[in-house]
């Protein structure tokens, strides 16, 4: 089969995987090879759906012995099948990389013959790329559930990041939609990976850096949203656990795109993009804003408010904490003001050193006041309205832009570096 045909098939099979981040490790080949990695991610293009393309996100093969009902690659689906050879994949990655099309490779796969066999071939491709082609760019590899831990270990030593897709947030969901997969098969490698990463971190503290560290940019996972009845509350609780107990770097959420007809799947007309968007916003609150999952969902077993940014929703439930005086509040409280992100909060603290911050001053330092003004005072003065009347205030805060006809408006801001979303690591400039 022609390489062109393979790419078409294998990109098709990979596109529902959402992770594209290339951040989290910095280094360079220093003349011995090709490639470097940056601690901040770099997008190389944006596809027609507006999502960032950073890595060559592709399957090693779309053949699969499993039959997960939500998946385009399931055994029973009538689609053309293809597999790379390790040489083809290594060459393709290298040629794309030197033209600066991509930041690196994100290799996932269906399960061809067996998990071990698949993991082995993927690892061979990575070895060729690293050892023979001298590639020092970013590699994110999927660990195939059920593969031998030794194979996962080897793959992880060639990769910057390794991940196991949880896909379904609950055990019941997994039983129903992917009966051949056992929760154990997913949890075990995740455990193993997080343990290994932790051990090596300890090791590194004691001695000099290891020659071939295991997944230095950490572990991530992906959850499918809307294929099972799991509520946002449940999902956020799960993410919180994954961050705290497993030390994951990212949890990705992927709105379920109805690719198969199956009586066990919900009858969705469109992927639940707005819900996915709210989850990303809430996830951001978990990772960078010091929120606990229970605070965001208010302890109720339900979905996030579709009409409100989760921080606004939280603030409306906690009006006794507002308004906040920008000249007195500490960093963590500033971060809780709707519309103020890490970057603005830091700038406010910096500016405060030289005198009081006025309302105009907030604009000067680039804070976005559209929402914030309802929740702050500057030198005692309140510039918004509605503080006494949460119902009225709610109507002011509702995300009109996102209430358009479809759900197709700008829903992906969670993935693009807008003020509220800027990673703290990049703040300060």
């Amino acid at each position, binding site marked *: 089969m022609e390489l062109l045909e393979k790419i078409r098939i294998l990109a098709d099979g990979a596109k529902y995987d959402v992770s594209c981040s290339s951040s989290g490790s910095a280094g360079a080949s220093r003349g011995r090879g090709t490639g*470097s990695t940056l601690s901040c991610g770099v997008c190389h293009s944006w596809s027609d759906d507006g999502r960032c393309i950073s890595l060559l996100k592709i399957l090693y093969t779309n053949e699969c012995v499993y039959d997960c009902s939500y998946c385009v690659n399931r055994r029973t689906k009538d689609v053309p099948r293809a597999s790379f050879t390790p040489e083809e994949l290594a060459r393709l990655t290298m040629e794309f990389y030197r033209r600066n099309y991509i930041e690196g490779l994100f290799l996932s796969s269906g399960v061809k013959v067996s998990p071990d066999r698949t993991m082995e071939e993927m690892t061979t491709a990575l070895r060729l790329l690293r050892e023979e082609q001298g590639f020092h760019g970013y590699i994110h590899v999927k660990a195939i559930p059920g593969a031998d831990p030794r194979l996962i270990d080897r793959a992880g030593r060639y990769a910057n990041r390794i991940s196991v897709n949880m896909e379904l947030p609950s055990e019941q969901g997994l039983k129903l939609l992917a009966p051949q997969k056992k929760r154990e098969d997913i949890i075990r490698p995740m455990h193993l990976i997080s343990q290994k990463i932790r051990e090596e971190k300890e090791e590194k503290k004691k001695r000099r850096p290891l020659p071939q560290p295991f997944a230095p940019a950490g572990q991530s996972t992906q959850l499918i949203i809307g294929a099972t009845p799991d509520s946002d509350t449940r999902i956020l609780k799960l993410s919180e656990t994954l961050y705290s107990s497993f030390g994951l770097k990212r949890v990705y959420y992927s709105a379920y795109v109805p690719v198969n007809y199956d009586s066990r799947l919900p009858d969705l007309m469109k992927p639940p993009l707005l819900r996915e968007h709210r989850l990303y916003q809430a996830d951001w609150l978990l990772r960078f804003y010091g929120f606990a999952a229970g605070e965001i969902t208010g302890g109720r077993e339900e979905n996030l408010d579709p009409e409100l940014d989760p921080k606004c929703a939280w603030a409306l439930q906690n009006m006794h904490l507002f308004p906040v005086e920008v000249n007195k509040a500490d960093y963590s409280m500033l971060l809780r003001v709707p519309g103020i992100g890490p970057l603005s909060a830091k700038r406010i603290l910096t500016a405060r050193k030289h005198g009081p911050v006025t309302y105009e001053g907030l604009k000067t330092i680039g804070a976005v006041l559209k929402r914030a003004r309802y929740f702050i005072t500057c030198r005692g003065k309140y510039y918004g309205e509605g503080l006494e009347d949460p119902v009225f205030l709610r109507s002011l805060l509702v995300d009109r832009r996102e209430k358009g006809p479809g759900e197709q408006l700008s829903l992906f801001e969670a993935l693009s570096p807008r003020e509220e979303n800027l990673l703290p690591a990049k703040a300060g400039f």
Partner: protein
Amino acid sequence: MGTLIYDGSFDGLMTALYRVFLGGDTAEELIAEKDYQPGLFSTGQRVETHEGTATAMVEAIRKKISPRALRHAFYAASTGRKEAGTLVYRYIKKGFSLGKALDSHLLDPDVAALHALSRRVGRELHRLLGLTRFRLLENGVLYAPLEPDSDIIVLLAPHFALRLPRENWIIHDVRRGKAALYNRRQWVLTDLERQGRLPLDREEEELQELWKNYFARIAIEERKNPRLQAGNMPKKYWKYLVEKEGR
């Protein structure tokens, strides 16, 4: 109100600043030659760029203010905007009285104005780290044409020297007629005119085809969102993007 006119280069700007701060000239306005229009009551004074003087000024900024302030000034100047010279002048002037703390005075209008310019360049630089596209030429050189808003190929070159150390490459600012050339050891900046059609390596078209197909296939039909795409990847950069060329 005095005006100093410099040649538009960063060295030129630094030479002019030196004259004001250390050479006893007075001026309120620093303007690049290309933007200068003689006024009715004022005449500008031309400053001859002098490398040694410029270096002395750069060192003074680095030591008496901070390396970061120097970077902000450099970024702001690379916008090539008419007001850039004067804004840099006001910013550096504040810097000599505030010292290291300069960049924490976020409410100061001179500091805020300069940061805004500098951020604009930082943003474009970050975008182009991703959006630069090399084409492999027949002679084995990787060639990337660009038309950035700001004069930033000198900021892109170090990144690619680190990333593609074993290649020969050219990053060409087509509109400004200059290029960064790299020969597997170091990069230099030179003048380079607009090029005609360059002979491509025989595998180049195949590779471009592979990339274009990948690009088309990775989008999810049900999520099509051209507005978001153009918001993230402004159309002004599409001209040299292999996957968007001619669209």
